[in-house]
């Protein structure tokens, strides 16, 4: 009896998971539409005596037809499993799905279900399922172990997981099936605590798929409010109001973005606090824009003896020089490393000019020019932010470069005149 029930569980799990599998690549409304008739169908089956095999087959075919079956492989096997719903008690439907939902999901994710289904079909009867069970047992036991543990603990462990990949896992490949299975579990029936446990398990497993946050209010379970698409679990001791949940998600997204920006903006690793960080970002953007203006002014004043060859050489040089070179120049103002590095760049450009009368600049001049670059690169930034931002040698650099940077000074003056 127990084994038969087990087989029924497996059969039902198989069929239910095959239901899960079916609309896996479609959007959620399709899934919901595909799920409902199946659930209601199973319920009706369980409640009453079993309908005819053909009737079921036809209905299932219909269901298969409505949802997107193109991605769904084991159609015939799925159909054959359906009659096993007959001896099933509808009240325990989700109970049985729960512990096995996870291993099935895993298997689906690993794309191993179709061969299993084939095995079951060939078995022909419920005994065949038991023969195929051992392959699943390892998964089942592990998952059941997880299921047996306290839901709170497991979910709390998984809640950060579900939250953090929110922004990135919009195209979660292996997860959508689990998402949909959890949504299926969420979906239409509110049965008992076990069902909620299942929800939590699968919800904890799922990643935030489509950022469309629909039902945020906990309509599914009274215990913890869950969203359909981004499964956010209210942490212990926090308000479970739907609005606060949404706010929390939003805040986490924003902090994620701030972290990204922190990496982009140089020198912001130690800054904590959003307001200060935003100020830094603003200053950085302003300095970059000023740099662009200054450089365009510089290009305007430069008298180019342009040849097309120069353009080609220049573009090649620009494209081939790594961006790291500028940064490397920027941060080694007086050290030997920059001395060694800079001539590597300049011969690349100067030797390429066919008819220019440019002598190869002496080393100190080159270094000073580099320092000028560094200065302007850093000076714009540090000038607009706090003082003493860069290394201590910056002020001396500044003084030295001012003496030697005549051309630059003239251009600066011109710029100031014209802008005043």
């Amino acid at each position, binding site marked *: 009896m127990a084994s038969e029930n087990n087989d029924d569980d497996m059969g039902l799990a198989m069929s239910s998971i095959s239901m899960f599998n079916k609309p896996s690549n479609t959007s959620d409304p399709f899934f919901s539409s595909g799920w409902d008739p199946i659930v209601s169908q199973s319920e009706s089956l369980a409640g009453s005596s079993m309908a005819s095999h053909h009737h079921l087959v036809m209905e299932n075919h219909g269901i298969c037809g409505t949802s997107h079956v193109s991605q769904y492989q084991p159609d015939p096997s799925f159909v054959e499993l359906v009659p096993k719903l007959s001896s099933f008690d509808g009240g325990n439907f989700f109970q049985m799905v729960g512990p096995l939902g996870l291993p099935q999901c895993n298997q689906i994710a690993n794309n191993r279900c179709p061969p299993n289904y084939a095995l079951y079909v060939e078995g022909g009867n419920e005994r065949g399922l038991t023969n195929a069970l051992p392959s699943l047992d390892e998964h089942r036991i592990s998952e059941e172990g997880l299921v047996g543990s306290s839901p709170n603990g497991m979910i709390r462990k998984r809640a950060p997981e579900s939250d953090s990949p929110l922004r990135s896992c919009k195209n979660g490949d292996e997860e959508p099936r689990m998402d949909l299975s959890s949504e299926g579990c969420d979906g239409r029936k509110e049965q008992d605590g076990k069902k909620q446990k299942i929800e939590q398990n699968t919800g904890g497993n799922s990643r935030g798929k489509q950022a469309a946050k629909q039902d945020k209010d906990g309509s599914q379970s009274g215990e913890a409010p869950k969203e359909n698409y981004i499964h956010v679990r209210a942490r212990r001791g926090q308000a479970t109001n739907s609005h606060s949940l949404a706010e929390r998600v*939003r805040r986490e997204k924003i902090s994620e973005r701030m972290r990204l920006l922190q990496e*982009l903006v140089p020198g912001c690793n130690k800054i904590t606090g959003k*307001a200060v960080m935003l100020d830094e970002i603003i200053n950085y953007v302003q300095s*970059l824009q000023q740099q*662009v203006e200054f450089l365009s002014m*510089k290009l*305007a004043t430069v008298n180019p003896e*342009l040849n097309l060859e120069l353009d080609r050489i220049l573009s090649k040089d620009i494209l081939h*020089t790594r961006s790291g070179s500028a940064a490397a120049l920027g941060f080694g103002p007086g050290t030997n490393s920059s001395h060694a590095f800079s001539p590597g760049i300049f011969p690349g450009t100067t030797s390429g000019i066919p008819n220019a009368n440019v002598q190869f600049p002496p080393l100190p001049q080159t270094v000073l020019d580099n320092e000028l670059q560094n200065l302007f690169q850093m000076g714009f930034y540090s000038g607009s932010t706090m003082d003493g931002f860069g290394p201590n040698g910056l002020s001396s650099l500044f003084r030295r470069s001012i003496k030697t940077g005549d*051309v630059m000074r003239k251009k600066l003056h011109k710029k100031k005149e014209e802008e005043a």
Partner: protein
Amino acid sequence: MNKYNPPRMNPSSLRSRFATRFLRSLSKINAKKPTASSSSPTEIFRRYRRIKVAADKSMAYSVRSRRTWSRAMLWKLRTRPCCRRSVKTSTIVRKTRHEKQNKNTTTTTGEDGVVFGVEADELRELVPGGEAMDLYNLLDETAHYIKCLTTQVQVMKKIADFYSP
């Protein structure tokens, strides 16, 4: 040992797209000017403006319409007052409607709007097209904008260094 090995650059990267476009427009600008009056401040100023516009335009075109800020910048550049085209009137009409829509959507809801009130507004002014975005998208656009600005600065710096060693 010369360790300067030019690595294979992605030909369709942002940097290459911007560099080619900008160099093209730069050569056009330089080809236009008569060498006689090139040193007068007004002429230089005009060239500066043109070069700056060219730089912004090439950057925005390199990003196409994938980003809100690039769309806003392109749009701003198209409806500049010195742009004398007959299409101007229709674009202006669209602009006012667009502005109205911007104003309607600027009202930030939620507590984050309160926290970042002043700085967010400043950032919105800096990033083109930032008026109509909520904070999250604004930060997203800012990140991409910073990346593009740094690319722009690097390329222009190399060009400038090339012409005036």
